[in-house]
């Protein structure tokens, strides 16, 4: 993303069982607090908060699929897309949110599917243009640096890697990973948005137009804010770059999901309380 790409001092270790249990415990406390504080709207709030948490977990999982190479990718030194992981995932997720919000009046499932497809479509086009740029613009074939064979197509990778690099471009597994990450991001973002929107619509009593502009404004900015928080935390988890689902770093995703559950628990709780308390 920017010139800073220094690796963190601590080697990113394994799953943290104790801390993860505490985090899950916190999340349960947040859900309980929502039920207790919101009185007559308790059940609705719990339902909304659980939806938000599921959405956040989907986003955190999805970020790990998006192949991002950071600064070295811009020099063809490592595979992946040459930009920041948090921002690329957010770009896809918000493109999905655009589609999902547009279809929100039709129904929950259509909106969710529309959001997922929106995010997937954005990544499908972007990843294709990345490969076209590498192949037809710079004459470089795609090669992964982390695996010998592409797990989907079975193409061997090392001999297509140019000298002195860790690979370049997007092998098919990375492409599929990118699309899948976009799908999950769009799905999660839309789920957060719709849960918030429905809750605000009940509490704020919508105007005759059906959709209350205030509810849309609140749900929109909160969905974007929460998406950014989850995406940045997930980016911290993979320390900036990842090749896709075949990368060894992908195995770190359980940590990010636990983190997303806890983080979205507190953010979602406060976001619900904005309209429902006092």
């Amino acid at each position, binding site marked *: 993303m920017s010139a800073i790409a220094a690796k963190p001092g601590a080697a990113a270790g394994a799953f943290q069982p104790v801390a993860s249990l505490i985090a899950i415990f916190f999340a349960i406390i947040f859900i309980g607090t929502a039920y207790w504080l919101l009185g007559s709207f308790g059940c609705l709030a719990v339902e909304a908060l659980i939806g938000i948490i599921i959405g956040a977990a989907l986003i955190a999982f999805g970020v790990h699929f998006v192949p991002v190479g950071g600064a070295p990718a811009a020099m063809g030194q490592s595979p992946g897309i*040459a930009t920041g992981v948090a921002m690329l995932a957010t770009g896809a997720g918000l493109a999905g949110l655009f589609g999902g919000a547009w279809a929100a009046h039709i129904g929950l499932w259509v909106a969710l599917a529309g959001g997922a*497809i929106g995010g997937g479509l954005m990544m499908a086009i972007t990843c294709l243009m990345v490969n076209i740029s590498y192949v037809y*613009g710079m004459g470089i074939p795609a090669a992964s640096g982390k695996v010998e064979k592409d797990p989907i197509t079975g193409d061997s990778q090392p001999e297509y890697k140019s000298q002195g690099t860790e690979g370049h471009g997007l092998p*098919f597994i990375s492409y599929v990973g990118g699309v899948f990450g976009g799908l999950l991001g769009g799905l999660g973002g839309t789920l957060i948005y719709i849960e918030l929107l429905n809750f605000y619509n009940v509490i704020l009593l919508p105007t005759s137009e059906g959709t209350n502009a205030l509810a849309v404004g609140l749900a929109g900015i909160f969905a974007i804010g929460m998406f950014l928080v989850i995406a940045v935390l997930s980016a911290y988890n993979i320390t900036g770059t990842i090749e896709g689902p075949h990368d060894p770093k992908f195995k770190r995703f359980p940590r990010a999901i636990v983190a997303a559950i806890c983080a979205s628990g507190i953010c979602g709780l406060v976001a619900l309380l904005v309209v429902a308390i006092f």
Partner: protein
Amino acid sequence: MQEIIIGIGVTAFAGALAAMAGAAEDTESNIGSQGDPNSQVQLAPQMGYTHRIYNKAVSGEPPAYTLWVTLACGIAWAFTMLHVNAMLAIIFGTVLATFVQGIYATTAYLGRTASLSKFGQPVFIDVLKSVTTVTMAHAFVAILTTVAACYLMSTMLQHPFALPLLGIVWGLALGAAGSATGNPYYGKERQYQNQKFGAGVPISASGNIVRYAEAGQRSSIDNGFFTAKFGGPASGLCFGLIVFLELWRTVLFEHSLDNWGAVGWGAVIVGALIIVLFMIIDRYVEIWARTNYGPYTAEA
């Protein structure tokens, strides 16, 4: 029917605007040297290569373009509230956003370059004057077209989001698409033009960017000449396709399956088919490269 005809027109126009935005965005970010390739511009003086390349380290392209576009959207909205004509309001918003972009660009160049004093990298005032204005001009095109597309979505297609929220969504997507497609072409192909064609830059060559132009010393404007030939149009195509297909599948197909009881699912199914189509094209491109370029052979 009337609605769909208007919708198709708006879709096509928004897609065209987005294509312009993508092309201008990539050219702007390459002239200013923003995003990932800028790490090499930052690195070069530390490796002993003084240069005259701009150093527009505002942030990555996605957050930066989110700011410019959202800003222009917000100001355009405020002016329409003051009963200014919408077209004029969009231009006012864009002008102010371009001003903010220029200020951020200059402070980033001055800040980064001054902090490199240890390596003897001077601040070039003529670079500051000439390059900043050129990036502002390209940014103006990119912002104006994106805000216009957002305005169309908000008013003609009745998207529920308010204009600045659409600005966040499409500004971020613009930056993400432009940086993803355009960065490698600037970073690998232009900054390291002296390296072998058809291969990645060896890690050992990092920092040794090309610093001389056809005549004299290269400034960032020379990079714009180059990337505008491929990176810019490719980014434009990328963002244009994203906006166009996203709108097209909804406007045209959202209610196509309503008679079969699947209300609203038409857009989803068409979107899924498009994704599969792009996947097939990508696989074709990958195989084409593998068969035509072949594996790298060991250096003699």
